[in-house]
């Protein structure tokens, strides 16, 4: 399962890799679809605790601001995903929009997550902003932030 996710991520990252037509620049609609696909794979990788797949998605200098304001770098974020005390059972995105600015893309969405932490159930709904950078033809996330939606 982990290997499969990693391969899927690699295929999604590089424009044209799936169609073997890398010489043809991807269109904005294709880039949007690719970024939305990467966001979904990210959720699946977190649920599967597949940190190898996440390493492919996330830039080494990535900065993560969690729902409680905690700041994590990539290593700390991957460690939090791999932690055996947290089990994300469901992560789903209710809505997402992609804003493309050349080599920069911003994905804004609403997520819902449920699982257990140290044996206790949790459920969260929040808004996220992910900033992606296209580097050597691949999209990498450089910043992600989550804010809970007040009820």
């Amino acid at each position, binding site marked *: 399962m982990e290997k499969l996710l990693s391969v899927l991520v690699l295929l999604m990252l590089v424009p044209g890799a799936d169609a073997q037509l890398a010489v043809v620049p991807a269109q904005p609609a294709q880039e949007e679809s690719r970024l939305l696909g990467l966001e979904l794979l990210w959720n699946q990788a977190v649920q599967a605790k597949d940190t190898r797949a996440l390493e492919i998605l996330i830039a080494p200098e990535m900065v993560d601001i969690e729902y*409680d304001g905690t700041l994590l770098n990539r290593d700390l974020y991957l460690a939090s995903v791999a932690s055996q005390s947290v089990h994300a059972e469901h992560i789903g995105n209710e809505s997402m929009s992609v*804003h493309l600015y*050349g080599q*920069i893309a911003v994905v804004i969405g609403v997520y819902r997550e449920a699982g257990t932490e140290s044996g206790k159930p949790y459920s969260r709904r929040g808004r996220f*902003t992910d900033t992606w950078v296209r580097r050597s033809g691949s999209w990498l996330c450089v910043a992600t*932030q989550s*804010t809970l939606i*007040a009820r």
Partner: protein
Amino acid sequence: MRTRTTGKAIAVTVLILTACSSAMAQAPELRASRSKVIALEHAWNQAEERKDVNALDQIMDDSLVYTDYDGAMMSKADFLASVKAPARHPEQNLTESMDAHVYGDGAVVIRVYRVKGTVNGKPYLRRGRFTDTWIKRNGTWLCVASQNTLISH
């Protein structure tokens, strides 16, 4: 004290920061871009404190998406309206720390802030983290996304 002159001065400062790069021409491009977006962040704070929506208008792209500390999402027009709302009186907007990462014509700024003021006569005090995403368009840096999360520990 807020005056029209002060508002104009901020607007002029913002214009200089966004359009004029000659002063930084000798510095490496990356360093200059980093300095510029950090200066724009400070200009944003000042403009918000003074309710100077003209200055804010110049540093925000029309596509700006702003996510507030309670998860509310605002367009640029919504955000500017919230800044100038008569019920809102910001008194202080301090930056505790700030870091900027530049990616060519894009930049990400992470900032820890502390704000206080009153809304409808009730005092508020908040501390949180921001991620602001900037793009450079025709030589001008513009903020396209800003998200705010309270620090709860």
